[in-house]
């Protein structure tokens, strides 16, 4: 271990130190909101800055990447992009959580600390160049998630959701680890680049490797909540406190996709022809089932939980296109991740803001006449929902456009991807129904309560403004992010054999 290693590892170290610092602050000023929040945001800014610096250092290298700890950790354009995205996700979550927590007398410091711990795990995944680091990062990312899901200790639903999430989560982690063991056993290395080399050398798909692939796929499918491994999602999402739900639907999902990219793209790329079939089937199943079930939900939180399953499917389409040899697919997936993060967090932020008053449910009827009660919130919610639907010119539209473009391109070599593109579009139309239903309630029905709306803090408005600006900007002027996403996608070893 050298100083250089530590410097490259800086973002993760800074994140862990930040989590510790938040706990110390809470120890000095117990239960106080302002100090914890101030430290969190200052720390997140610092983590972001360090990420940018290390990223720049790596970008200046000839190969565009730097490794640390004997090749176990890598900093390249992909790491930097994902790290910054994680920081943004955590910052946005922290922007709209405090109001909600304060009203329910839940402490904010632990919340922030746990969230930042999870972020450090996600960052570890993004930069992992070794299968063991990958697993370590995965566990570090999901364990805080279980805690967050059960954060509302006195609420039965929250606890129920957390237990379900925990049991299925640890179960899938075990399966995943089992799969890793197979890969290690058959290749003799845990280094991601090493695995690629050995596989590329032409190992036939032995039963052992096939089994390992199946286990890995199952574990990952659990983590991204792909159908048919999605059963924990609705309960965990509905039971969790709303800001947690927002985070859970975005943070661990993007983290798990980082894992997919590193594992299937970087390590198992030579086997693309084998795993891509499964990815395509998962994609089609996931979005179709997610959307169909979302149609029947009357609870907006639960509906968004199923919709997030559907969005997993759309992102998988991008990855399937990548698996068929289209780098555009990976770019599309990365773009979609950012677009999804902003629009989905924005939507959950609105729900959290409405639910600030105790006892307000997330039923559809809560949204009745919102345009008259809280016009600004209703307008933003409409924007986020339109973006989730994929109506131009929003981030969600461009994300879908990108993914579909990749799938159509890949369709020239593998016709099934064109079919997948069509299935995706039909799904987008189905999804329009339930997103627009919320708009109907907000705009076209009378309010059900005369209670004046509670005021929202400046932090919430700032967070919402940021989400709004990004949701519009990524749709109107996506050019800036496109260059970043392209260089990030190029950082992955190379195109899998199609």
């Amino acid at each position: 271990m050298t100083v250089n290693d530590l410097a490259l590892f800086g973002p993760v170290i800074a994140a862990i130190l930040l989590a510790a610092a938040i706990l110390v602050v809470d120890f000095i000023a117990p239960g106080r909101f302002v100090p914890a929040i101030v430290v969190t945001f200052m720390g997140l800014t610092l983590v972001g800055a360090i990420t940018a610096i290390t990223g720049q250092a790596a970008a200046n290298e000839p190969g565009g990447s730097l490794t640390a700890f004997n090749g176990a950790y890598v900093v390249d354009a992909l790491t930097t992009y994902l790290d910054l995205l994680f920081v943004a996700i955590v910052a946005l979550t922290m922007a709209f959580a405090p109001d909600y927590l304060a009203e329910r007398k839940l402490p904010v410091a632990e919340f922030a600390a746990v969230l930042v711990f999870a972020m450090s795990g996600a960052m570890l995944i993004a930069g992992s160049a070794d299968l063991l680091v990958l697993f370590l990062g995965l566990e570090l990312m999901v364990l805080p998630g279980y805690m967050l899901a059960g954060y509302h200790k006195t609420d039965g639903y929250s606890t129920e959701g957390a237990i379900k999430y925990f049991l299925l989560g640890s179960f899938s982690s075990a399966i995943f680890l089992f799969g890793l063991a197979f890969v290690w056993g058959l290749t003799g290395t845990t280094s991601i680049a090493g695995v690629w080399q050995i596989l590329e050398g032409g190992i036939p798909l032995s039963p052992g490797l096939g089994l390992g692939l199946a286990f890995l796929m199952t574990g990952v499918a659990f983590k991204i909540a792909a159908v048919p491994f999605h059963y924990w999602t609705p309960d965990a999402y509905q039971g969790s406190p709303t800001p947690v739900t927002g985070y859970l639907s975005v943070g661990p999902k993007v983290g798990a996709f980082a894992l997919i990219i590193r594992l299937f793209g970087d390590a198992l790329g030579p086997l693309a022809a084998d795993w891509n079939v499964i990815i395509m089937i998962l994609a089609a199943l996931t979005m179709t089932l997610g959307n169909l079930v979302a149609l029947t939900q009357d609870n907006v939180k639960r509906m968004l939980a199923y919709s997030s399953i559907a969005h997993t499917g759309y992102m998988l389409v991008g990855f399937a296109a990548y698996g068929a040899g289209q780098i555009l697919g990976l770019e599309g997936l990365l773009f979609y991740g950012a677009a999804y993060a902003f629009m989905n967090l924005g939507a959950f932020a609105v729900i959290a803001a409405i639910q600030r008053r105790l006892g307000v449910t997330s039923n559809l009827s809560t949204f009745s006449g919102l345009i008259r009660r809280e016009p600004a919130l209703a307008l933003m919610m409409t924007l986020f929902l339109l973006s989730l639907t994929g109506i131009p010119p929003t981030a969600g539209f461009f994300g879908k456009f990108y993914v579909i473009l990749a799938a159509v391109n890949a369709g020239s070599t593998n016709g099934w991807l064109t079919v997948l593109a069509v299935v995706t579009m039909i799904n987008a139309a189905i999804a329009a129904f339930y997103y627009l239903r919320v708009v109907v309630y907000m705009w076209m029905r009378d309010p059900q309560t005369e209670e004046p709306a509670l005021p929202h803090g400046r932090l919430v408005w700032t967070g919402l403004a940021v989400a709004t600006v990004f949701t519009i900007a990524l749709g109107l002027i996506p050019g800036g992010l496109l260059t970043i996403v392209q260089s990030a996608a190029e950082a992955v070893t190379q195109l899998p054999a199609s």
Partner: protein
Amino acid sequence: MSQLSQQLAGLPLVTIVVFLPLLGSILLAFLPSSRPQLIRYVALGIALVTWAVSLVMLAGYDNAAGGYQFTQSIDRIPMFGITYTVGVDGLSLALVVLTTTLTWISILASFGPIQTRVKEYMVSFLVLEIGMIGVFVALDLFLFYIFWELVLVPMYLIIGIWGGKNRIYATIKFVLYTLVGSLLMLVAILAVAYTYQAGHGGSWENAFDLQALTQYAGTGAFGGTFGLLAFGAFFLAFAIKVPMFPFHTWLPDAHVEAPTAGSVILAGVLLKLGGYGFIRFALPLFPEAAHSWAPIIIVLSLIGIIYGAIVALVQPDLKKLVAYSSVSHMGFVTLGIFVFQEQGMQGAVLQMINHGLITGALFLLVGVIYERTHDRTIAKLGGLGSPMPVYAAAFGFFVFASVGLPGLSGFVGEFLTLIGTFQVDYLAATVATFVMIFAAGYLLWMFQRLAFGEVSDFLKGLGHHLTDMKPIEALTLVPLGALVVVFGLYPGILLDLIQGPVEQTLNAVNQAAPVALGLWR
């Protein structure tokens, strides 16, 4: 004329027309909702200014030179060759002016009926105008798609908030139908762009540019099975918008539930997006596939013409009758387009514009009576002629225009379409001609029940509330009536304008694959 063209050529007039309503809607957003009258006048003012600019554009268009003029092109996402390219030729120009005209008329017609949430209404209407004009001027497929979808949201709100009893069902149906079509079209657009890119050494430059793509299509690049499927996707999107049988079922619901001005725009402009899409995008891009699909489309058009007329015949509801008559009339548009014959397509374009004027006016008239009676059942409204003579006369005028009385504009479009069809296919033309008798039947019968005879008990019960047309209502109808007469007597103004674009599209289609036309030959 040419001097004016030169002076105007430097101005980005198209962009101004597209984005004036945007400026207006932002301005409106800052006005206090507590002053609806101010908001109404400001919205009307913006619509009138936009209209004026579009007229300047019309005057400045050099018809002798033809082609796309006032073009403007800015790179938007160079990575994929996506640009902001706009421009107008005679066809788009005619439809842009139709749009701007109907928009200010609709806003004026909303002064009385719309009393709640006036600000949101006016903002929605202006945003709608951006989308509609944008579709007609976009020369980049990506841009076109964005405007195409942009139309959806404000119309969704207009029907859903200010509509009738069943408005939510109607508006969701409208959105879902349209969305299914347009999303599949997006896949096709991307596939076309990809094919272009693959054929140009992997360079995305111009991959979404309509002119470049059209040229490339001329080499037969989008033929074969690919063309058939891609054309199918475009066809679905446009056929739902037109709407063609059997994709028309959203239309009666949307029309009946929409507020009057919403119906006017829906019939007047939104349905034309489909016809325009066929002529501007589907045919030039997939000429081979268009030939293969044409027989099916002609049959569907004929079914639409007959079906719309028969169903209209038995409608008890005035607005629904006009809505179904739209299905029938728009059948002529698709028929005229897909016989691939010059007069036929010119007739189709004329029919699009005339249908916009006439049906728009009919919906306005239905709105006038609904304002007074809050009922649209034809049987209840018998004998309107004596309490409301001016109204009945105006209604009569537009009914005759819709029937296709020679001298009024409705006649020209249908006549040309039929001439064109006769040259290609006797049987189809004969069927379509006989249906015109139906049209006369349901419209005149409706008018007879409405205007003549004993004043019904229902109307008597209303007593003095049953006032004749107000000046503001007349003001919305006079320009439409004037245009109906002008285009009826001298269709040459329009024909000169659209001849170039129509020939261009037909050349593209007929050069590509001169397959034998017709159904039963």
